[in-house]
């Protein structure tokens, strides 16, 4: 036998390790079943505490989420009437005459669309450049940090920065300009431009992650067919990350719809849409307005409207919009997992 023999009895065998008996005292009772699963009673105390805390954390978050939803549904549905959705708000002390929140609802839709329309192409372009080109490295790192800074900046700071920026004379075409030449700086265009910064990091991160997960040989397969890098990006890579882009965009839209600071500072947070100028379409974009978030704020006991019932109704509608967007994210992510390139890697095995 080629097995090396151990040095015979040069060291005495160790006594059995004095392990503590597992608590529970099971030897008294006869076991009911033959198969015994791992019992928590055999765990260390710290492990048991951790186990309980994990359960508790999950259940707590569940409870909070359901609590918000149920409370808002209860309060919102109590006051939500269909005519609220279709009538414009008016300033009136008498709540039966102050109208609904059609304008804020339209404002939310409009600002979300403007923001995501600006953010998505820029984010896709930046992510594609970082992953597919990314040279020189210092520039790639600089862009990465820049986007991280944007992502980390509080929205009120972005709003103030936007106000200072868009009050410059060259941005006069984006908002109301007073007789003396002073630029107001508040409009759907300026607010939408700053809102795009809220959504941009999410679309960027999702796109970059998607591109990075495409194996290198897929790109090489395209190059090996005599395709240029541009053709590869346009026809192979970007179509492959469609689901990632949609996920990022839906998340970004949720963030825009829920933002308040930029609305208050840059959109005027007025009760109704106030068009500016005479060109149809552009006048709305140049004008000020409000969204559901600013409407909720204004009608909460902290705001000037102080109509909590309407605030609850509007808040419930806002919650539904954001939940719908999150649900869309889930759906996209699930369908993307089925048709994405991951399947090809698995299918190869």
């Amino acid at each position, binding site marked *: *036998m*080629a*097995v*090396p023999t151990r040095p015979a009895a040069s060291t005495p065998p160790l006594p059995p390790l004095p392990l503590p008996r597992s608590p529970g005292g099971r030897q008294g009772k006869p076991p009911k079943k033959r198969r015994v699963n791992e019992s928590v009673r055999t765990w260390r105390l710290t492990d048991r505490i951790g186990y309980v805390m994990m359960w508790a954390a999950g259940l707590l978050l569940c409870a909070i989420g359901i609590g918000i939803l149920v409370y808002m549904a209860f309060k919102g549905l109590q006051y939500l009437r269909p005519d609220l959705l279709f009538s414009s708000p008016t300033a009136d002390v008498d709540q039966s005459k102050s109208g609904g929140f059609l304008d804020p609802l339209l404002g939310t839709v409009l600002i979300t669309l403007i923001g995501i329309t600006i953010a998505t192409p820029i984010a896709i372009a930046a992510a594609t450049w970082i992953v597919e080109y990314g040279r020189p490295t210092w520039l790639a790192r600089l862009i990465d940090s820049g986007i991280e800074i944007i992502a980390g900046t509080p929205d009120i700071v972005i709003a103030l920065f936007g106000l200072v920026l868009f009050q410059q004379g060259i941005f006069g075409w984006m908002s109301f300009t007073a007789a003396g030449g002073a630029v107001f700086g508040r409009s759907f265009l300026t607010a939408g431009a700053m809102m795009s910064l809220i959504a941009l990091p999410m679309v960027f991160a999702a796109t970059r992650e998607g591109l990075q997960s495409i*194996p290198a*040989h*897929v790109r*090489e*397969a*395209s*190059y*090996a*067919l*005599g*395709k*240029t890098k*541009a*053709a590869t990006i346009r*026809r*192979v890579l970007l*179509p*492959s990350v469609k689901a990632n882009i949609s996920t990022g965009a839906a998340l970004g839209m949720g963030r825009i719809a829920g933002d308040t600071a930029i609305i208050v500072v840059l959109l005027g947070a007025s009760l109704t849409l106030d068009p500016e100028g005479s060109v149809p379409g552009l006048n709305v974009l140049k004008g000020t307005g409000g969204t559901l978030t600013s409407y909720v704020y204004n009608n909460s006991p902290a705001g000037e409207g102080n109509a909590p019932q309407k605030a609850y109704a509007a808040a419930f509608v806002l919650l539904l919009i954001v939940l719908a967007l999150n649900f869309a994210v889930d759906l996209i992510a699930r369908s993307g997992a089925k*048709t*994405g*390139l991951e*399947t*090809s*890697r698995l*299918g*190869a*095995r």
Partner: protein
Amino acid sequence: MIDPHESTARQQHVTSEPANGVMPPPVRRITLDRQPTVALPPSQDAVAIANAGDRSLAAAARPARGIAGPERMTIDGLSVYYGDNHAVKNVSLPIRQGEVLALIGPSGCGKTTLLRTLNRLTELTGSARREGLITLDGEDIDSLEVTEHRRRVSMVFQQPNPFPMSVFDNVAYALREQGSKRPKKKVLEPYVVDALQRAGLYDEVSSNLDHPALRLSGGQQQRLCIARALAARPEVLLMDEPCSALDPKSTNVIEELIVELRKELAIVIVTHNLQQAYRVGDHVAFMYLGDLVEYGPTDQVFDNPQAARTRDYIGGAFG
């Protein structure tokens, strides 16, 4: 190495507790005091037969060698460096139409690098540097526009990598020009069908050309990649271990395809599988640590290798 004590203990454990009343088979310990004699079915393992010195059976198991046509590509004094790493050292090889050149050698010997250099994919690696001359039909490949060159020298990869689009679009992708004008589906269809037929896939996918390519099986995906590579009518087809991710049946289909395709184009195949090199290769080049150790007709390299390192590798001494 198996610990004898532990092994005996396990044996006792197993025999003392018969599960469900059935005695398990006794544990037999493997002793290694002599080499195992493995009997292989004669048609399956040509190399084993080569070692045994009987060629007649093996020769019957493989298709006839291709007839070498004109030289399409010539590699002359090629060296490739990755930074300081000299990956391919002064290699010269001819690539002829109508035959399959099989590159064999242990991992990291530079055969894949050599293959990728042939359609200038190594240039995508920032640190790569190339010396020496490669010609395609007498023209220096550096003087050709790179996308034009890659359309003439196409490549199939180790992993099946169809693009996430339909079967039709995968093949059509290779045909569509890069310009703004995109030919209509009707115009492309005969070419796509032809490429799929040449890759032996058309009968399986003819009814669902619009289905996503990623739903196909692994072997079908790889044949789709071959169809895609053939669609642009290349003169040389490079294959980087095209069967290593596939099951034996798909491997067999693709090997038959390779033998069929060599009539019309020159094929260079990198493989880890010596039997595959023997089955499909007309010429074999053995590489070791970046050097081209031996190049010759397949029968000669396997039967009667000139270099000692080739003999050792084919005999299974290292790899």
